[in-house]
């Protein structure tokens, strides 16, 4: 912590203190918490905060990856390395497995964003998790701007935006009946820029795809999609090489890259500070379905 004689803390210290408070509150009050870990920058920061909240003890809960089967290899490698370093239990809720078992069916457009929700809910029920840490931030998306720090979900995992619990001071109400659960968002008040400033300050390593690199891409709807086994060009789409990086990391079939020369954390911060497009707007095909695409997914149990 960087404190001055005037007993002031920086905005990053204030955000860190709030997130740590929230994580401790969950562990103190809930039976079976789990941290949703995608290998994306927000969940990586959340994991660092969990380390800090319980040091010198180990992180007292497992992590879970909802695996759509459409992964960036760099991210999977990062995930396994991080989990091993911290001695964490990793639970993989697998969409390909659920497809084989017939729990879900592939959607017509091949996107797996929507079908990962039943897979997540199935894992929550199987492991009887009652609190799920998610890295969602309120600045990301307008439906998320109205989300609580402690977000109540009914036995079907559904979010009811019109019926949320008032959240006053730092008094979080995590009470629930068996089968119900709470989604907890410790990074609610962080912005994309805050996350990057924190990554720089804490020298947190990230999967390499967050930094500029050469990649073969296809341009579709103004977004750059990497050509890989999950994403192939349609007729008329010409793959080309470009210098890109990822601003968000999600399902490899619907997450796009942005043109960028930012190959260090400092350069990424400069780029993020200057950008005029939101990170989801620039990189997520799944949010473009409709005005309320995110709200609709959240109501079904998505994060």
């Amino acid at each position, binding site marked *: 912590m960087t*404190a001055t004689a005037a007993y002031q803390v920086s*905005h990053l210290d204030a955000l860190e*203190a709030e997130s740590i408070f929230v994580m401790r509150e969950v562990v103190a009050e809930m039976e079976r918490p789990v941290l949703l870990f995608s290998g994306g920058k927000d969940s990586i920061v959340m994991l660092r905060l969990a380390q800090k909240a319980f040091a010198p*003890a180990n992180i007292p809960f497992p992590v879970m990856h909802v695996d759509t089967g459409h992964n960036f290899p760099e991210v999977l490698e990062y995930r396994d390395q991080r989990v091993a370093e911290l001695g964490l239990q990793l639970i993989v809720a697998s969409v390909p497995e659920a497809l084989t078992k017939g729990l879900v069916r592939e959607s017509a457009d091949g996107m797996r964003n929507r079908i990962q929700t039943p897979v997540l809910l199935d894992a929550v029920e199987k492991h009887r998790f009652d609190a799920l840490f998610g890295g969602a931030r*309120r600045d990301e998306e*307008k439906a998320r701007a109205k989300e609580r720090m402690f977000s109540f979900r009914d036995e079907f995992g559904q979010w009811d935006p019109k019926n949320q619990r008032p959240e006053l001071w730092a008094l979080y*109400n995590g009470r629930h009946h068996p089968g119900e659960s709470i989604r907890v968002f410790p990074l609610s008040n962080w912005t994309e*820029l805050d996350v990057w400033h924190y990554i720089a300050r804490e020298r947190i390593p990230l999967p390499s795809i967050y930094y500029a690199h050469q990649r073969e891409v296809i341009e579709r709807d103004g977004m750059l999609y990497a050509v890989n086994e999950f994403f192939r060009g349609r007729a008329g789409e010409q793959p080309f090489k470009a210098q890109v990086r990822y601003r968000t990391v999600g399902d490899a079939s619907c997450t796009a890259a942005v043109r960028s020369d930012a190959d260090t954390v400092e350069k990424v911060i400069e780029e993020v*500070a200057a950008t005029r497009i939101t990170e989801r707007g*620039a990189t997520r095909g799944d949010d473009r379905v409709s005005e309320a695409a995110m709200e609709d997914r959240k109501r079904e149990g998505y994060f």
Partner: protein
Amino acid sequence: MSVETVAPAEADASARQMDLLRFATAGSVDDGKSTLIGRLLYDTKSLFTDQLAAVEAVSAARGDEYTNLALLTDGLRAEREQGITIDVAYRYFATPRRKFIIADTPGHIQYTRNMVTGASTADLALILVDARKGLVEQSRRHAFLCSLLRVPHLVLCVNKMDLVDWSQEVFEQIADEFTAFAAKLDVPDLTVVPISALQGDNIVSRSENMPWYEGPSLLHHLERVHIASDRNLVDVRFPVQYVIRPQSTTVTDYRGYAGQVASGVLKAGDEVMVLPSGFTSRIAAVETADGPVDEAFPPMSVTVRLADEIDISRGDMICRPNNAPAVAQDIEAMICWMDETRPLQVGGRYAIKHTTRSARAIVRGLHYRLDVNSLHRDETAGELKLNEIGRVRLRTTVPLLADEYRRNRTTGGFVIIDEATNRTVGAGMIVEAG
């Protein structure tokens, strides 16, 4: 909108030294609140082109005559369909000096519940009035709720000055009337700014249309208002949140008390008392994951180790032997009721969450219900319905370690939970704990 902008948050190291100001906005769409928020976001480059384009597209499709910036914050399907704001929305912007969190509270539906929620964590509240209409009932209600929640700084924005010919007389009349009303309340710091949110006057820089106004622009004030002194650094209050005891072969015999400092300054060597037991000890160390710190103060989350082995668990409070909160089961409090299904009734039993401590409580008495518009006390009231405020007496199953809310917003505030539905049904501010 004009393109007068300030630099966005800098990328360099100085940006990491910004502090944080949380503020709540109160007012309805008619007062130009959404326009003001849109203007603040736009002028600080915190509004993104894809967000603006989406709002413009929806506005055009609905046949709005102008770009409806309310759509920026009204993100839910039902809000867009019904043209209303349902819930508190959080918005973020930053300047090189400060990061800001706006709790944007809607003006119409569930007004009191949302305003109280937004104000509970606010360093500052921003109230808007329309210069053509002057103070209305709602402006007084906003001011009262801010004082009830002890928001340390209040800013009255007299908006739409362009529609009253930038009249100094109109502004001063509204400012005087509001100042007189605020004097009857507990409002420690009040600033009044004449603005035009639509045209950007006195938002980022001083308006050339109102040379008679000598105060700061709104953003200048928000960036510089002194909030460091709002924290209580006198009364040491450290609610124990969680006990850290590593089950490890490398770290043995470690017992640390984790929590967020509610008030006061803690440092190694300090003599402390633990409540409710009353045992005393000394602080052996104040630690974070990054190592020991010399001092801990609000809002730091730290781990405190004591020199002696004392039985301490979650819900206990570390304080000083000569400066301790009340240990009380009889609580006098102002309650704001937030449940639409069942009113608060005398004899009702509820769960309570206060600091890190949970208790059950029974309502022993309702002294009066307060009319938030006239401040009239109705002593014949038998219950509190949704959005009603009143003074009650509670008896708790276990003692609360409590201060008066006016002295400490963290150890003086609590929430009431319905044990059957698990819903948060009320907010309480302690007046007296004995």
